């Protein structure tokens, strides 16, 4: 199985390459990708440098172009597709049907992956993208159980990549607009969930309130660990019950499922986190490389080493990890 790692900038890309990634995924420095944050992503010259560095070490580079352009922004996406083709990237990861159509017609040799933002959770949807645009791989939304993943793979015309580690979207990617409901900006339109420009931290007598677009998302007692306020992990009052009404602030770690993923036919495991630091990327990539190598050497007796799990737990959001949708009780 291929290890696909995030790179929000050149140092992170080098960290991923040096620590054992088989592929890295990157984005342009604008709203054409789903990690559109200030100071993040690649100017074209840095992309050239990054691709040269990765290629020199036998690592593939994918470019994510996975938001949804409106008509007046479509030209920029065409230019981005052209640029990716010119750079000779190993794959373009896209979600929008118009963008996939343009890419497949204009650059027939360009390898296309369907982004997780394309929301394809079943093989009939994958057949659509394969027949029309010749996609060769798809990234599945983080909503399927491992047996459902296997079923999709059994019928899928394309290779399947799944998320294995990192922040966990509890909603189907590409079909969640909670962020724009509160802020006007969503992953689909703007490339970011809970944009920092709309986050407020307000000290109160009781502690700290976090608001998104003015909406109270979290109320932290003094001294409590404060996480980034994404709506789906906020604390709300539902029928008098004050809790994480949608999802606990946990993140995904599916390492113990590596044998099941392999048996299901998963071609690549993806690490989330282009917004994270090069140090994070180095640490997580290194551990996952060790785990994958250990698994390949001895598949029948694989188990995550406690020190891997502990180290990954430390860098996880909420410092707690879950098997998420892959595991039955979650559903």
């Amino acid at each position: 199985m291929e290890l696909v790692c995030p790179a929000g900038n050149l140092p992170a890309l080098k960290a991923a390459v040096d620590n054992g990634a088989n592929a890295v995924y990157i984005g342009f420095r604008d709203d054409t990708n789903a990690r559109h944050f200030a100071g993040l992503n690649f100017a074209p010259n840095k992309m050239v440098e990054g691709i040269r560095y990765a290629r020199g070490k036998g690592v593939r580079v994918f470019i994510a172009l996975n938001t949804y352009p409106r008509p007046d922004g479509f030209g920029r996406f065409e230019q981005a597709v052209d640029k990716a083709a010119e750079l000779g990237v190993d794959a373009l990861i896209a979600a929008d049907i118009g963008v996939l159509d343009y890419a497949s017609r204009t650059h027939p040799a360009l390898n296309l992956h369907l982004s997780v933002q394309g929301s394809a959770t079943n093989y009939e949807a994958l057949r659509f993208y394969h027949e029309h645009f010749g996609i060769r791989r798809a990234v599945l939304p983080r909503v399927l159980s491992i047996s459902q993943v296997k079923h999709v793979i059994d019928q899928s015309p394309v290779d399947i990549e799944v998320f294995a580690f990192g922040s966990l979207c509890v909603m189907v990617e590409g079909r969640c607009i909670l962020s724009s409901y509160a802020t006007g900006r969503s992953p689909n339109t703007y490339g970011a969930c809970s944009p920092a420009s709309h986050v407020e931290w307000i000290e109160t007598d009781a502690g700290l309130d976090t608001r998104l677009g003015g909406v109270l998302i979290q109320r932290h007692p003094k001294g409590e660990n404060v996480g980034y306020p994404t709506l789906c992990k906020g604390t709300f009052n539902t029928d008098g019950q004050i809790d994480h009404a949608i999802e606990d602030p946990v993140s995904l770690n599916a390492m113990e499922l590596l044998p099941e993923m392999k048996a299901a036919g998963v071609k690549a495991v993806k690490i989330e986190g282009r917004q994270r630091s090069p140090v994070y990327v180095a640490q997580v990539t290194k551990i996952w490389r060790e785990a994958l190598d250990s698994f390949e050497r001895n598949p029948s007796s694989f188990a995550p080493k406690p020190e891997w799990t502990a180290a990954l737990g430390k860098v996880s959001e909420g410092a707690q990890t879950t098997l998420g949708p892959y595991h039955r009780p979650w559903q």
Partner: protein
Amino acid sequence: MNNPQPPIAAAQSGHRPRLSLGPITYYWPKEQVDAFYAMVAEAPVDIVYLGETICSKRNQVRHEDWLAIAERLTEHGKEVVLSTLTLLEAESELKRLRTICEQTQFMVEANDMGAVHLLASRPFAIGPSVNCYNDRTLGVLAKQGLKRWALPVELTRETLEQMQRAKPADVETEVMAYGRLPLAYSARCFTARHKHLPKDDCRDVCMEYPDGLVVNTQDDQQFLVLNGIQTQSAHTVNLLAELPAMRALGVDILRISPQSQQMDQVIELFHQALSDAVDPAEASSQLNALMPVGPCDGYWHGEAGMVATVA
């Protein structure tokens, strides 16, 4: 844009959009569903979308029942469209989807690209959960047989205008003009989770909430609604006051999304505004009193969706 703008084909004075009723998004007992559509049969709506779009475990109304309702509504002069499930995970769900897509009596509204694939080369519609954010996407789908598309609810009036200028001429445009906004879908059932029940053994708890379960912020702002695996807005979008703008943009259909109470009055107010019997702004303010919580219309104006620009 520097290019001279093409005219919007359908836009003309006197252009009268039709009125549609979206699928019921909540889980109601069969008697309530039957009573609802008995009311709808006599109500001034032109198009009715039927079917379960949220959760495949909801089985009060089965495929044959939906077809029977569809036939009754057709007899009452309604155009009926069968809506499909939004999040497809299990083979059993694909099987049901195929049953819907293989019948040819009624047009089908695809709510997932899997359905679009199954409907290839037949006339079909797409619902607001199919991401159609630009005219290029519309063009690709039109070649597959797309007859009608729904504006994704987070898009603005300005984007709609761009779409209307560039879209294929024979594809109709539908805008969700009233109802709680569909905001997100998950594999998890949040209603069951709230009741500390596993999804596998949910005991149909969502039936206790005929308009969904309201989620409040800790400072008591009514914010979201949990509806099984779907999350909706607590506030109801209301774009009736924008009827003159929609006429000018050549919008073909205004969609109302069902709520459990006072639906007949909501439909009547839309009908009166559409037939020029009442001023749209006046009808719009009367609608606000019929909502479970209150109005919002921010997306249309390019703001956060929860914003209400018209009080």
